[in-house]
């Protein structure tokens, strides 16, 4: 997988971690290795098991099977308060009956008083809340509460910080600002992060690597660009963003790691599938809308390339133009392009659509 995990011994290693609630496995035989100083995102819809996996790592739940190791220490079976891992909760879970500084100091009870005060002051300066030390959490804004929660979770200098939907409760403008702050802080502290999120954009902004979860399993792990451009399944393709899935049948192999696919309105080429598929199998070709380019339909003049299509709808979205195209068999393909070409190819226009074979992935249907 990623080279970072092979270079040195991993910081965190999960092996076969399983957790059942009733009969159903919420987390199903998960293996995962996390490097020092890495930001790893667990991405998936609600109910996919990502929060349960985080709670297993934090120690709020104990696995039914498998082991959790941090460095050389086996954490399996240890309760949360004995694990050198801290967590930032989605609700922030600030103690409402304590001031900001007492919240931040809570994890430092075992330190001498003078050291504790100095550390709290440092942490509050780090999150720019030094003027709010004596305030109660309920008098703070959402962004300030988030920063208190972050300072409190970092107080014990954990080697690994778990963040459960850290930005979900913030409004959009604040979210982007906080994302870059969080990333800058992580680079400075060199603490590893595991971030749970359902928002692919958040995962892309924060993570070095992303693990996509479905039904209690991690179905694909990789850098965000890798997951976006080379998804291993329709599920991953759809989760990371808008995608066209053009149905067809697998054709013969071609040089350069490509493969032909016969679709209703012609033939196209795409990268060979990773999955074990044979010629004639039903497949889909996954291609992102921004990879689909349009050209004029020059039928009758011979040397045309691409698949013939009709523009069904054209929508101006400010930073891009989104078009819905209908292929000969009536199936729809979405294409998005730069706003400069706004006037070209209005609704009703006949076009040819093309995309680079390397930008398209063949997936099991």
């Amino acid at each position, binding site marked *: 997988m990623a080279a970072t995990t092979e270079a040195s011994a991993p910081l965190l290693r999960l092996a076969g971690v399983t957790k059942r609630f009733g009969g159903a496995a919420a987390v199903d035989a998960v293996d995962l290795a996390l490097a020092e100083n890495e930001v790893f995102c667990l991405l998936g819809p609600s109910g996919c098991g990502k929060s349960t996996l985080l709670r297993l790592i934090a120690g709020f739940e104990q696995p039914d099977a498998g082991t959790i190791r941090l460095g050389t220490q086996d954490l399996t079976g240890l309760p949360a*308060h004995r694990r050198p891992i801290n967590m930032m*909760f989605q609700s922030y879970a600030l*103690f409402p009956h304590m001031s900001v500084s007492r919240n931040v100091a809570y994890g430092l009870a075992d330190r001498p008083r003078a050291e504790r005060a100095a550390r709290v002051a440092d942490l509050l300066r780090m999150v720019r809340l030094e003027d709010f030390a004596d305030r109660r959490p309920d008098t703070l804004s959402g962004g300030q509460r988030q920063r208190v929660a972050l300072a409190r979770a970092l107080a014990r200098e954990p080697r690994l910080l778990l963040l459960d939907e850290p930005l979900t409760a913030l409004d959009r403008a604040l979210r982007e600002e906080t994302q870059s702050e969080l990333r800058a802080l992580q680079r400075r502290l060199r603490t590893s992060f595991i971030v749970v999120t359902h928002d692919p954009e958040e995962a892309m902004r924060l993570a070095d690597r992303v693990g996509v979860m479905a039904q209690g399993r991690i179905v694909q792990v990789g850098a965000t660009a890798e997951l976006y451009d080379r998804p291993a399944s329709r599920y991953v393709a759809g989760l990371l963003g808008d995608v066209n899935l053009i149905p067809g049948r697998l054709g013969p192999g071609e040089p350069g790691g490509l493969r032909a696919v016969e679709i209703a309105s012609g033939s196209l080429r795409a990268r060979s599938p990773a999955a074990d598929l044979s010629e004639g199998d039903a497949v889909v070709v996954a291609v992102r809308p921004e990879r689909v380019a349009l050209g004029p339909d020059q039928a009758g003049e011979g040397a045309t390339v691409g698949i013939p299509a009709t523009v069904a709808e054209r929508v101006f979205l400010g930073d891009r133009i989104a078009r819905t195209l209908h292929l000969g068999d009536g199936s729809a393909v979405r294409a998005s392009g730069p706003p400069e070409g706004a006037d070209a190819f209005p609704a009703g226009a006949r076009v040819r659509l093309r995309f680079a074979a390397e930008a398209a992935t063949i997936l099991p249907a």
Partner: protein
Amino acid sequence: MSLFLRAVLGLGLAFLYAPILVLAAYSFNASRLVTVWGGFSTRWYAALLADGPLVAAAWVSLRVALASGAVATVLGTLAALALARHGRFRSRPLLVGLVFAPMVMPEVIVGLSLLLLFVGIGLDRGVGTLVIAHATFCTGFVAVVVGARLRGLDRSLEEAAADLGAGPVRVFATVTLPLLGPAVLAGFLLAFTLSLDDLVIASFVSGPGATTLPMRLYSQVRLGVNPEINAASTLLVLAVTLAVLGASHLSARR
């Protein structure tokens, strides 16, 4: 609000509170005759303080209410924690039943069964047995009040405390208990009130030298009502009202 609704409200409130108001008004009656108004006076309140047996009974009631309230608060809080925090253990429905049954059981039966128990094990009846008996039926009420608060408590607060290195005892002392505080105090006030009011159970389990205020009032009423009883009753109603108002104020607080 229409006239009709106002009238209905007025009648409803009168139905509930007119008897108590009449009682309170007559406690300020200068006349010895209960039903004849003889002018305003506080003489019966002064007479109360001079009535040795009545003051002694009030003192017994207060001690029993404080002690049984404290015992019920500890037991009820523990029961609420067990029911709210330990998921679905096998004997859970049984424990729920055992905690809440004394609340709905007829008082005569609770009193009688406690009396039989105390006689059976040879426990001398007095203040001690009163405290035990009152704690028994007040525990359920405390469990209800504390349990409601506990269900509204964000579980992640306790998890956050554990995550920051606090063991179970520190989590309970620094997070759970402070956040439950108002409900625990409200439960105590409710138990205190219930104990102060009780006549039926107390009549069964009390012994010589442990006459509570309601018992004293009741026995005097049987000999004839006098304005002094009105005054004592008014004070009792006042104490109970204050405690209940305090309890509901604490329960409503976030």
